[in-house]
């Protein structure tokens, strides 16, 4: 019996091994990995990076970030050109490209996609405001489009939301032209139109699929969804009805030498098929990449030493396989927030400064970021207007003597009289290690820290109810404008808003309110720089790092360039099948 059983097990194993997927060289396929389950394809819920990356393959917006140019620059996508803006900065007139077709779907008559019109944008913007749908992107438009909040409020208790009622700030001029009318100047408005929240959906498709709409995306984008299992795999094919959109012919000065203009003028998308595998754990992500089954990957922290030598060069073993490396500053800031509703921190700037000086940023960079991050001097990361390169925060850079002096002046000599402080973090290994490191640093000046680990929902609950005394967190840019970061310290945004540290400073608030409605220019930059220094000197948080995005990609992947807002990136990527055949022999 046991012999039979063992034979059965072996038969099972042999059969199993024989059924694996083979590499296909007949069509250009990109194999990607995403580390999180995808919640769905409804643009109005595109709050997380991973969902918005998938939404951006199928849906499109009026504008997009230029793929190659830096600093980031908006360029028309479904808009015929950049909008006409009225002199008072309140009215934006858009012309929509003609001949753009929605993908074929059974939601349309005869299953054939129809042409995109101005009405589709008006409808899509209204969906964001629909009180029954509770879009996660509503904050972008809240109070900014004339009549939209009134429409939302009016329909909040209605049985059915009335989409036929006119909204003053959303006006159709003709089939291909429409206007936004704002309630007040909002220079970041155009960024909103490049974000997936505002991408165009077709009313017929929304109504046809009802509550299942998020599983049946039908957009105008470069790829058409073929298969979707939100916890396993997503497969796209080139959209056969995609309009004539071409690879850019200009970029940064170094792009040509980097081969990034080799496909200039070619019709997009450049690959036939995209497979996105959902792989949560870092080991299988890394092994799949090492085996050539994944085309590009953000290097997992634990595999950093296998990928990088000397802190910035690709490991020779990987270079031999044709693999390439990209290391670029990401637009983010990590920090330890003080809760400013706690009188201990609110009224005691010297305590905050002492704690900041006790924190060892250099060691933290080595331990947690493989020495690739940039130590944050204030709130704005490099690459965004308002970041002041020459500013050195006097309270960043470990100085225990000064920290102890400030702690004494704060009323707590050697930490005496200061109660044990509570540091809240999530329960992941790295977050706990960061908490331990923080506690060790504070102990050096006599401050006792208790570390409380939470699930993410618990931590959010504590910050929203203002009960977290201190917490470690990070903020990534929604768009490349300092306003998106300074808003985190703007008093009226206090919890449960984005100012989760509940910092309040009337001078800061006044300057922010003034700067946030100004168009980009030297005057606004001067105000932003003022805010930047104020945010540094006041130490509302202990600033951490601006992290570096470290990505490796296979030698057969062409046109990869790091882009922070990368939901439209895949259409620009290419795969060289001949190179792939050759390079795979080295794996």
């Amino acid at each position, binding site marked *: 019996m*046991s012999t039979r*059983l063992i034979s059965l*097990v072996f038969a*099972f*194993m042999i*059969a*199993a*091994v*024989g*059924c*694996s*997927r083979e590499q296909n060289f007949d069509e250009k396929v990109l194999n990607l990995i995403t580390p999180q*389950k995808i*919640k*769905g394809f*409804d643009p109005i819920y595109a*709050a*997380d990076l991973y969902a918005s990356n998938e939404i951006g393959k199928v849906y499109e917006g009026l504008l997009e970030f230029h793929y190659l140019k830096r600093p980031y620059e908006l360029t028309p996508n479904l808009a015929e050109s950049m909008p006409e803006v009225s002199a008072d900065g309140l009215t934006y007139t858009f012309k929509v490209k003609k001949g753009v077709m929605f993908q074929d779907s059974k939601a349309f008559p005869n299953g054939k996609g129809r042409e995109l019109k101005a009405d589709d944008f008006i409808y899509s913007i209204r969906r964001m405001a629909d*009180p*029954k749908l*509770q879009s*996660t992107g*509503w*904050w*972008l438009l*809240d109070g900014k489009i004339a009549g939209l909040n009134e429409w939302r409020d009016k329909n*909040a208790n209605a049985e059915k939301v009335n989409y036929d009622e006119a909204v003053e700030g959303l006006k159709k001029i003709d089939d291909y032209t429409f206007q936004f009318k704002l309630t007040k100047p909002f220079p970041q408005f155009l960024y909103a139109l490049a974000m997936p929240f505002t991408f165009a959906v077709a009313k017929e498709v929304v109504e046809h699929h009802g*509550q*299942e709409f*998020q*599983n049946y995306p039908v957009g105008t984008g470069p790829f058409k969804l073929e298969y979707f*299992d*939100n*916890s*396993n*795999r997503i497969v796209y094919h080139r959209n056969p009805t995609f309009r004539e959109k071409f690879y850019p012919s200009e970029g940064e000065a170094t792009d040509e030498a980097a081969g990034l203009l080799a496909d200039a003028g070619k019709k997009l998308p450049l690959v036939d098929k995209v497979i996105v*595998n*959902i*792989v*949560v*754990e870092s*080991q*299988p992500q890394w*092994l*799949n990449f*090492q*085996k050539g*089954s994944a085309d590009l990957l953000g290097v997992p922290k634990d595999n950093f030493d296998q990928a990088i030598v000397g802190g910035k060069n690709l490991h020779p073993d990987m270079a031999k396989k044709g693999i390439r490396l990209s290391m670029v500053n990401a637009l983010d800031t990590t920090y330890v927030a003080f809760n400013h509703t706690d009188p201990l921190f609110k009224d005691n700037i010297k305590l905050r400064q002492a704690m900041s000086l006790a924190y060892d940023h250099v060691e933290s960079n080595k331990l947690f970021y493989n020495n690739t991050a940039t130590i944050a001097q204030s709130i704005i990361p490099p690459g965004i207007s308002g970041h002041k390169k020459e500013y050195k925060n006097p309270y960043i850079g470990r100085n225990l003597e000064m920290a102890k002096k400030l702690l004494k002046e704060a009323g707590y000599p050697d930490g005496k009289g200061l109660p044990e402080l509570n540091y809240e973090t999530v329960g992941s290994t790295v977050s706990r290690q960061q908490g331990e490191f923080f506690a060790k640093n504070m102990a050096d000046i006599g401050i006792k820290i208790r570390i409380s680990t939470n*699930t*993410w*929902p*618990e*931590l*959010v*609950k504590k910050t*929203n109810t203002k009960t977290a005394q201190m917490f470690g967190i990070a*903020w990534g840019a929604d768009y490349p404008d300092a306003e998106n970061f300074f808003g985190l310290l703007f008093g009226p945004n206090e919890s*449960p*808003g*984005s100012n989760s540290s509940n910092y309040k400073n009337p001078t800061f608030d006044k300057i922010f309110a003034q700067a946030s409605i100004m168009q980009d220019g030297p005057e606004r930059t001067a105000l932003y720089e003022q805010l930047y220094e104020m945010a540094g000197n006041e130490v509302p948080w202990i600033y951490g790092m601006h992290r570096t995005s470290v990505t490796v990609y296979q030698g057969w992947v062409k046109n990869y360039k790091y882009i922070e807002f990368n939901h439209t990136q895949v259409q620009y990527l290419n795969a060289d099948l001949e190179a792939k055949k050759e390079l795979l022999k080295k794996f």
Partner: protein
Amino acid sequence: MTTYIIRRLLYMIPVIFGVSFIIFVLFNVVAGDPAPLLLGKHATAQQIHDLREQLGLNKPLFAQYMDVVKSAFTFDFGRSWATRQDIIEMIRQGAWPSLTLTIPAFAISTVLSILLSLVVAFYRGKGIDLTIRFLCIAGQSISSVAYILFFQYFFAYKLGWFEISGYEPEFPMFLSYVALPGIIWIVLSLGPDVRFFRTVILDEIYQDYVRTARAKGLGEITVLLKHVLRNAMIPIITYVVIQIPFLILGALLLESFFSIPGLGGITLNALNSSDFPVIKAMAVLSSIAYILFSLLTDVLYTLADPRVKLK
């Protein structure tokens, strides 16, 4: 026996009330507020209030509890708050990958463990017994994550015998994806299972009826298979059948490392996002499965041992 079964099934009613109550209390006391999680980092107080209203979280607690009870009895769990998918459909989709991994692995590991424990019982006290016991204890002393990391690295990546991760729902494609995690499951199960079954079998081996059988001249293998094993079946059935409901819940770590889209991942995601309808559905369904399989255990007792009567 029919009366017994009906009575046991009726016991499910208070159990479901109880389970609903515990989940409800835990959700309201321990778990985070789902509204800010669902609305994202820019949520305003007004939005949070409105969403709580829509989700029914502003209703009186008793009314909320009755909603939980109602859905538990009607199996209408609604839609996930996080993904807006129909929950029954989510469970249906997740159950297949979980079961394709857990059932074959569980069946093979159980049979293999019983066979090995018979072997060690046969050679009790001898080298083979000591070796297998040593391997069992040594195997149990290593973290399951270590097995997963090593097997995945060595057998899937280095030797290339298996897929590193992923899943295909169609037969026989799924075999290549569940084979390695299945083998890890078997390896992980052998240690505790063999030790337990060995103890159970040794308990029987020193009974009078075994001595009688040997005295009658029956061979040791016949004694083990026909007498000892049969009498050891009651604790074995208890041990084995009661594990089955947990197979439906999937194998969290294995599913996670091998990217198998099973119920383990669905449950974990629901916990991480305070997705109460999914947590509720998983808790209610698993407690019902637990009750049904413990009832099945009782019924199997009567088959294993005719002296057992269910009253």
